[in-house]
């Protein structure tokens, strides 16, 4: 009975530790995705030509072993948005973030408008 109890307590402890680590990974993974999208928005706004696939590694936050991949493609099949007489360009931005040695990944695909 004692050994069963000890094993159960250790299992519960291990589960709570794993859950804490997963929730932390999810939080920082999602923040990294948002950070990359924010920087992409600034680059597109500046008129940088970033129609390509870019890969990198997290440089801040607690999990510097996070890796990321960003794919920016012009959304040519969609209508442009006219504002104040100028036609803007729509880009599809897909960002994927994962951690080395983990099967879990966090990804977002969104559309960003930038000015011509």
């Amino acid at each position: 009975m004692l050994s069963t109890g000890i094993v159960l307590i250790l299992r519960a402890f291990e589960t709570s530790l794993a859950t804490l680590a997963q929730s932390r990974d999810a939080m920082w993974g999602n923040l990294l995705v948002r950070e990359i999208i924010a920087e992409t928005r600034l680059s597109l706004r500046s008129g940088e030509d970033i129609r390509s696939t870019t890969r990198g590694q997290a440089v801040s936050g607690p999990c510097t072993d996070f890796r990321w991949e960003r794919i920016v493609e012009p959304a040519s099949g969609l209508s442009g948005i006219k504002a104040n007489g100028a036609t803007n360009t729509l880009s599809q931005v897909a960002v994927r973030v994962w951690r080395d040695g983990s099967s879990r990944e966090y990804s977002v695909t969104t559309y960003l408008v930038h000015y011509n």
Partner: protein
Amino acid sequence: MRRGFTLIEMLLVTAILALATGVLAATLGAGIRALDTARFFQAAECSSLAGLEKMEQDMSRISPCRMLKFSGRAMSVSFPVMLGEPGSDDWAPGTARYAYDPVEKVIRRQVWPYTGLEPADGSGETVVERSVGCRFMFYECPDGRGAAGTWLNEWADGTNMPGGVRVELELERNTGILRTQRTFPVLVMVPPDEERVNEGGRP
């Protein structure tokens, strides 16, 4: 004759069991305390990062009011912002200011309407706690296309606004200092009657 365990054997087994249980309980206790500390700091981390969401929201509703200027320094930033809900009576331009207090180790948010009085220093809502370092940076869009923008330590241009604002934070943790950053694009709110969507049918 049936032979059982002697008293010495029983005492020995009990002593070994007590020792093993004691070591296990101490290890588990230390582990649970470490887990509690980690949870405490993670909660503080979550709270700080959630507080910065407010900054992102404010940055996405910058007011085009030309009477209010964008002003950025290393430890504070203030900018014109639309207050209230669109269409409501309190929908009006105002000013939002985020300032780092190195003594209290917090970032405070102060918001006041255009016609209102500027709040006193030290007042306002605390959005980030346990921050031992903080620096604001401001994105200057390049002059020509194809060039990269520049991150500046100060924004003193009263006519234009930066393309974005970056906050570099050093959060206090149980295991040391956690460095992180958030980037917020500056989005100026345009009145709805100036937007036309899909006019003409083709891009």
